[in-house]
């Protein structure tokens, strides 16, 4: 495991990183995002859903005693209660960027580490490039060049690569 317990806390709670308060981090953990590795299951939509869920408190469920024998517990309690909290837009933005970066590292066969997931030093610059790539992907690609006598393969290859 690349991120140890303390590094996970630092990642989620330090101000230059995700900047969550301990309560917000606890609530997010209850949603399933407790470690950096959990980003594997959290993309932009999932983070939005989690942020919405945080606004609703979940009360603890007290234990239910057996009706026949009051000393026996029929159903154990479900603690602890999860308080309601809000997720600041800035934190949500940082989490979204971290999620994109995490998936990027996995796809390119690199291990996400506390160094390459540092928001100030790496992710801020990464986000700028990632946004540019997304805009580029939305642009209309040039028509596929036709390979013919007037366009020999050597010249055609260059223009073909541009339309990919």
């Amino acid at each position, binding site marked *: 495991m690349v991120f140890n317990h303390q590094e996970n806390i630092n990642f989620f709670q330090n101000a230059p990183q995700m900047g969550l308060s301990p309560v917000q981090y606890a609530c997010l953990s209850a949603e399933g995002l407790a470690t950096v590795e959990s980003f594997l299951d959290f*993309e932009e939509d999932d983070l939005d859903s989690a942020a919405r869920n945080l606004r609703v408190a979940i009360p603890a469920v007290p234990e239910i005693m057996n009706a026949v024998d009051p000393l026996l517990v029929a159903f154990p309690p479900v603690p602890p209660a999860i308080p309601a909290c809000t997720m600041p837009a800035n934190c949500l933005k940082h989490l979204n960027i971290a999620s994109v970066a995490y998936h990027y590292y996995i*796809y390119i066969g690199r291990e996400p580490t506390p160094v390459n997931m540092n928001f100030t030093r790496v992710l801020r610059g990464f986000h700028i490039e990632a946004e540019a790539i997304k805009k580029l992907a939305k642009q209309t690609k040039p028509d596929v060049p036709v390979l013919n006598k007037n366009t020999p393969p*050597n010249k055609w290859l260059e223009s073909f690569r541009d339309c990919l």
Partner: protein
Amino acid sequence: MLVRGASLSYVIRVDPLVPAEVDDPLVAGSGFGSSGSVLEELIKRLAQNHPLFKSDDAAVSSLLEEAVRGTRFEATIKTFTKRKQGRNAYLTIVSSHAGVDK
């Protein structure tokens, strides 16, 4: 998703293997290694054994099919375009018609 929006160029890159992290470490303070940018990093390091590679390979195959339709080059890659193997079709054109000895 960023990765799916990346260029299809990774399908036709020369080396299908992804370099080990030890041989191609990240540049300090950035999210890429020797490739020099996030986009180039995606082209250089996206795995070609990923489940989504097949659909990207097919997309390249369609583009190639469109490019050679009705030309003498069509027969060269027909075997691969029929199987939607864009990478193989591209490499065949390069080796048959645009190699160093051509």
